[in-house]
């Protein structure tokens, strides 16, 4: 019964999108974290989506990896800060708040779309159960 595969496909997309939303939340929460366990400033994290063919010809999604943004950290002049270097600069996270807001909207909309996909498949399956009644 291939319609059940819609649940697998839409479900995989929902978990991938929620992981993307999680990284966005982490990036926004740490937009000002000048230090971390490693002693370095926080680096923005991004998810990489990958299409995974599954049985029956359809294609699910999975998060292949979570990568750290390699772009340089923001240098902020703040000599009062205990983390400032000898010239008075502090390395701040390379989180771009505008990018993250866009990512958040996109992830949330994609998640909603997949919920609707799943609901449509559910309606179709319920209708299928009425055959012969």
């Amino acid at each position: 019964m291939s319609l059940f595969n819609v649940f697998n496909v839409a479900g995989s997309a929902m978990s991938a999108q929620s992981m993307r939303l999680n990284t966005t939340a982490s990036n926004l929460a740490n937009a000002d974290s000048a230090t971390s366990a490693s002693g370095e400033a926080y680096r923005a994290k991004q998810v990489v989506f990958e299409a995974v063919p599954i049985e029956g010809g359809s294609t699910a999604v999975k998060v292949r990896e979570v990568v750290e943004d390699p772009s340089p950290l923001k240098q902020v002049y703040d000599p009062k800060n205990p983390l400032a270097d000898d010239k008075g600069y502090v390395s701040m996270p390379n989180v771009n708040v505008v990018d993250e807001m866009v990512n958040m909207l996109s992830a949330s909309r994609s998640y909603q779309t997949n919920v609707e996909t799943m609901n449509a498949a559910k309606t179709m399956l319920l209708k299928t159960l009425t055959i012969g009644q």
Partner: protein
Amino acid sequence: MIGKLDNYLSFNETALSLRSQRQELLASNIANADTPNYKARDIDFSSALQGALVRSGASGSPLATTEAGHIATPAGAADGKTLPDGTPVLYRTVKQGAVDGNTVDMDTERTQFADNGLRYEAGITMINQQIKNMLAALQGA
């Protein structure tokens, strides 16, 4: 008699099965709307239905191969180029390119998804009516 009943219902059955497989493909497109380099896919429904009707009329269900000498009935390989019943899966023509190589156009996919779902339900209504007609004929009431 059973063969006639089978023929009576087989058109709508084939159409419903193709519709549900197409729905799955469209769901894959929607799910991969944010996957880089994913190419949107679909089937050409009318030619797929023609092909499926010819196949189901010619041979019925595929035969099992239980001995080394048996010849397998041609079935869709699991390479993603065909559906399990042998229908070719095509790539959608790009309307607006994206920088990440993704060709999913959400407007097209959502429209087709709603359209396909509605036609599936219409197919179910029709097969139900066929069953009611057949019952009326059998019971004579």
